[in-house]
């Protein structure tokens, strides 16, 4: 409590504030501030939710873009010459073409060399025994 000089009535500060004094004024101000704070709260919450949703969507977009790029790379690998050759060899059991080169030589073919008879191996004389006449006769018979 504020006091004045002796003999005078003590001065009350609240009396200087209109409409009920200082506590009332402070209380009113606090109420107003509180009300002002509460007023946009719903909007702020809504905004934060939207931001979270946008971040989630952006994350999903990033994921899809990443997967798309990964698929493009995989597609490029599948279409690569290396992979095609590997698949052809391993899965389809194909083999690289073998170049068969034919060289035509314009000279007469080799003739079989003839050696003098003295260098040839001795001829094996196979003496076929002649078939006897009676065997020929028997063989010629239709019922035999």
């Amino acid at each position, binding site marked *: 409590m504020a006091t*004045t000089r002796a003999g*005078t009535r003590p*001065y009350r*500060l609240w009396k*200087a*504030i209109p409409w009920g004094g*200082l506590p009332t*004024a402070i209380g009113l*101000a606090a109420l*107003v*501030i509180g009300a*002002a*704070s509460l*007023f*946009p709260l719903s*909007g*702020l919450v809504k*905004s*934060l939710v*939207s*931001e979270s949703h*946008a*971040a989630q969507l*952006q*994350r999903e977009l*990033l*994921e899809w*873009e*990443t*997967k798309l*790029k*990964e698929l*493009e*790379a995989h597609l*490029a*690998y599948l*279409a*690569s*010459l*290396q992979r095609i050759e590997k698949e052809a060899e391993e899965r389809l059991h194909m083999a690289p073409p073998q*170049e068969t*080169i*034919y*060289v035509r030589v314009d000279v007469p073919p080799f003739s079989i060399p003839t050696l003098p008879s003295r260098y040839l191996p001795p001829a094996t004389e196979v003496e076929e025994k002649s078939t006897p006449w009676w065997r020929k006769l028997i063989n010629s018979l239709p019922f035999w």
Partner: protein
Amino acid sequence: MRGGHWRVKLVALAVGLAFAAVVARLIQLQALEHQGQSGKGVTAPSRPKPYLRGSILDANGNPLVMTVPAFKVLVEKRAWQDPQRALADASLLGQVVGRDPLEMIHETLASPAFEHTVAWGLSWQKAQEVEALRLKGVRLVPDSVRFYPEGNLASQVLGIVGRDGNGLSGIERRLEDVLANGGDVILTIDRHLQRVAEEALDKAIRQHGAKGGSVMVMNPKTGEILAMASRPTFDLRSPPLDDPSSLSLFRNPLVTDMYEPGSVLKLATVAAAIDQGLVSPHTPWYDRGVVMVGGWPIYNWDYSAHGSRTVTDILVQSLNTGAVWLAQLLGPEHFYEYLRRFGFGKLSGIELDGEAPGQVRWPDDPHWSPVDLATNSFGHGLAATPVQVTTMLAAIANDGLLVRPHLVKGIVTPQGVRWTSPEPGERVISPETAKAVREMMARVQPPPPANTLLSGYRVGGKTGTANVVEGYAYKPNAYIASFAGIAPLEDPKVVILVKIDEPTTVPWGTVVAGPAFAEIAAHALSYFGVTREGKLVSGR
């Protein structure tokens, strides 16, 4: 007394006004402007959009390199200070990313940075698994990896990117601006021909125990490079960036390295002499086996005298003395003018960094002498890149018009596709001269049995054997064998240069490089639908 009352009232009024101002501001911000303020101060989405570098495609749109989104895992150094916790977390993490836990802990603690990257190139699925672990101090960062569907095909053309995603060599570096901004590059390279060319090159190097080699296939009418490869090369998926001795592998020798083209250059000498009307393919000439120039003897490759010959024989039998005779008939002014027109001694303009212009001692050089004219006539004493030699060959195939060799067919951006506009070409020799030289080349064929691959096609070529220049001298017993050819001769579809470095079997271009030419030419002509009789049944 009275004076004190009004002071108190004044203070009370000021406090009341301050409250009112605060309340008014609150209402303004939270009630009236909350729509506009929403979003400010709210945390950004959990992950920014990943950074995707553009693709490099072949001429038919097949990807040679593309970017796949990925993630990398970063660990805070302080999160793994406690050994027990570090081991527990690293064990869980190691199971997902496939790394040794102790190695990851050691790397992280030894890192001078606040965070250390312990894993790269994780797929979306793997990244989800890491996130599900909810490890403290471990976070995922969007990343990307370059993926090569065709493996190491055209490695030196494509080039590499560093871990920061910037192009370091090849097209990756040259077109960094396009690729870094998500644009795609369409090359003139055809993956089928590139593969055939690389296989033929590898085979030739293997069969002849060579140190390396190069091959180039070009469309002579447009200058489009259909295939381009050199050996040795590197693995695109794990380039040896940490090995300084391997850095030379990243350059493209077809563009950056010069060599003495050797007898292949006789094509230019013969073409110039015919174009000037000095000789015809049938003009007779007598070869004595040696010619003296400035007191120096110049011999044929076989140190033999061949007697009565024609200009065609000079090309077919690759007679140095004949080339000297033709160059002397032309004189230095005309001879070097034709070298300039064929593109020697200047940049070709191909879209690769580090291109060498070649070295030619022009007559206005104070050190030039008639010996230069003589040796230059058969491809010695000057240096050219394989691209320049192939471009010269293309001019002969293209009826005398020189086109700029190029690798980029188009660039795809969100604004659309920008195609490389065809250039008309510069006249070097007349169409009649070009045709006459092609007919002379028909008598130079790959050796049997490889020539049978080209049975039914009319192709022609020119061989070359040159010394290897090391420093300022020739390397002893080291040669470069080459074969430059046109297929088919009537309506050329491709020109091919095969160059084999330091073969250990024989040095002759016909034997060493000729079979590779035959294989590539046979595949290319079949691929372009040219029938064995030389008729085009279905164009591409």
